[in-house]
């Protein structure tokens, strides 16, 4: 699996590259700026890019702009955005109309190597990865009459993992239940929230997010 990295801190860039290489990735490009990333994506055709949201020269939104442009111009390339702050507004901007092949994680998550590598793989193969903080922010959001209250604790756990982008298999592994059980939970949740059940796992991420955000 080919991966490109854009991160301006040398320390972190090296660490990330080593981590991904150790986990079997082929790191085809290490970039310092968003412009460099755009060029190298064209040349090296990675399956996924890992990009810091704050990049030179202004350290404002260069990384995010690059991610959004990549999603539009190279829909087949997965984009995982890393940041030291996770913001609901940014997640919404990034996932504007599709959760396919996109991820947004707090930078701290890279030290949970297993989860992090899983997220990179998921994004590379068209899945999604959303930081638990975003999901919990959305779940904690106050609503006038809260249908989330009808969910059982277990269903809530499944919803959280689902919103974060986990596949059914991923949820089954995490909660140590059968795939069949997960599928049952998912359809119950959709029914309780009044959402139409949709096929693809990444499409249902967006549906759940939109529901939670409104």
């Amino acid at each position, binding site marked *: 699996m080919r991966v490109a990295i854009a991160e301006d801190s040398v320390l972190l860039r090296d660490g990330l590259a080593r*981590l991904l290489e150790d986990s079997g990735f082929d790191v085809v490009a290490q970039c310092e700026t968003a412009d460099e990333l755009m060029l190298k994506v064209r040349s090296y055709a990675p399956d996924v890019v890992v990009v810091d*949201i704050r990049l030179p020269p202004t350290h404002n939104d260069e990384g995010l702009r690059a991610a959004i442009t990549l999603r539009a111009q190279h829909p087949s390339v997965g984009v995982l955005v890393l940041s*030291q702050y996770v913001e*609901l*507004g940014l997640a919404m901007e990034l996932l504007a109309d599709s959760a396919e092949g996109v991820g947004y994680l707090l930078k701290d998550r890279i030290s949970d190597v297993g989860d992090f590598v899983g997220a990179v793989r998921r994004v590379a193969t068209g899945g999604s990865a959303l930081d638990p903080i975003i999901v919990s922010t959305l779940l904690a*959001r106050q609503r006038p009459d809260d249908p989330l209250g009808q969910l059982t604790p277990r269903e809530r756990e499944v919803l959280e993992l689902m919103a974060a982008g986990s596949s059914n298999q991923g949820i089954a592994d995490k909660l140590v239940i059968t795939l069949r059980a997960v599928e049952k939970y998912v359809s119950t949740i959709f029914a309780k929230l009044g959402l139409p059940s949709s096929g693809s796992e990444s499409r249902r991420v967006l549906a759940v997010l939109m529901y939670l955000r409104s």
Partner: protein
Amino acid sequence: MSASAPARPGGRRRVRVPGVPALSAVAVGGVVAGAASLDFALANDGIGPELGEPLVIASIWSWTIVAYFLGGMLAWSRRPASRFGPLMIVTGAVCFLVTLSWTTSDVPFTIGQTLDKLPTALFLHAFLAFPTGRLEGPLEKGVVAVAYATAILLEPARMAVGEYGPHNLFGVASAPAAFNVVRDVQLVVLAGCCLGGVAIIAIRRRRRGRPLRRSLALLNDAFALGLVMIAVFFLANLVDAPAVAQIRWITFVVLGLAPVAFLIGIAHARLARSSVGELLVELRDDSSAAGLAPALGRALRDPSLALAFWLPEFETWVDIDGRAVDLPGSGDGRATTLVEHDGARLATLVHDRALEEEPELLAAVGAAAAIALENGRLHAEQRAHLEELRGSRARVIQAGQRERQRLERDLHDGAQQRLIALSLELRRLEEQLGSDPNARSRLDLARREIATSLAELRDVARGLHPAVVSGHGLAVALEQLAALAPVPVRLCVDLGTRLPEDVEVAAYYVVSEGLANVAKHATATSARVDVTRSDGRAIVEVVDDGAGGADTERGSGLRGLADRVEALGGRLRVWSPPGDGTRLRAEMPCA
């Protein structure tokens, strides 16, 4: 109290004011001269028939003499600093001396005839030197000098070769051909000088604009017309036009009108001065600083009048609101009059150049408004101080903001990145460690410690500066605030383009504080956040449906927020009527 042109650096010239005896002597002299010339005309047959009816000619001359004497006297007494009055008196005196040519004695006749063309040069001089009595530019000086030379030098030459009767002491020979040449040259040159003078008057009017008062326009017209008539008269003489006698009459009448126009001007200036009285009443009734310049403008009939006040402490000129202004330079078509009080600079009136012709009115208005101008100056000074204070408060808050922003970035680029890298390193170490359970659990603990530190650092960094606001804009940043609020929040951000960064950050804190207060006031079940832009102002509103009655005075949060908003020239208000929710509203200029 005095008023003078500020451009003159040498201070005021000492002016000798003419006393009553001098003025009386001029008046008496003028009347006697007028009567004497009338007597010359009637007692002698010095006025030839070619000049027309002796009585008519003599009356017009006498009138001109008396008018210039009296007009000059008035001008001298009213404007001692101007040479215009003495110049008029001299003109009247020379006009009288010319009438000596009507006598039949040798010496007086010769004197009178020698001076025959000198009044022309004097009229030209006086008209061009109005109102100061001084010729301004080289062009004026040149034209007048040529006129003087022609009038003084060529007349004796004419007399030497011309037929001037038995009393001409300069008569040498009769040479009609030479006489004609000298006469033609003299008349053409003098006519040319007069027409040049008319051109100068026309150019001046074009440059300065039409005078503000009709009497001044009338005076200028009288001057120009007089000069035109002299030129016409001389040229008519040259070609022996049939109506020379009538043209002569008309010329003298017109020249006699100039002092009348001048007297009308003085009378009008007196009327204008009555506006000084009105000004005093107006200033008493409306003592507001903003009304000062319009009131002075009305008194001077110059609606374009502006005021500049001198602030010695700042060493600058400012407007009534304490903002620094530049005084117009000489090429701006505007004139300035400095108003002083007890020798100290007070204010400058910036006015139409046409008002330069009425220095007494300017001085009178300046004097009448001295107290009001001093009040205006104090007002301007206060505003300047206020502005300075506001500026320094804004700078302090801005400097704080920049510093916090810098610290946030340092944390982000430094400690936070290093801790993450360290955590990664520990993970690698863990993998290489093999299966020592004790070491593994200690490493795990260390990584958890790092994770906690990172979370804490993130909170610190966020408290220092909301990086997401500067990085991604207000709308994106408010999404998270609204989601984390303790009650459902309807968020509506309608801005179009992004706001200036300082305003964005302040707006973020307003919403943050507003929603935090919603949490404190408990009873609210929902809240609304609106951010809009209207008339160059950003408007941020946080409204809840709680019980209201919140104590809006206490709490350093709101005070600090108000400081931040006011430093940006904005305003923060809180309404919290009991039972009717709480509304926090900030308005900040964002043009």
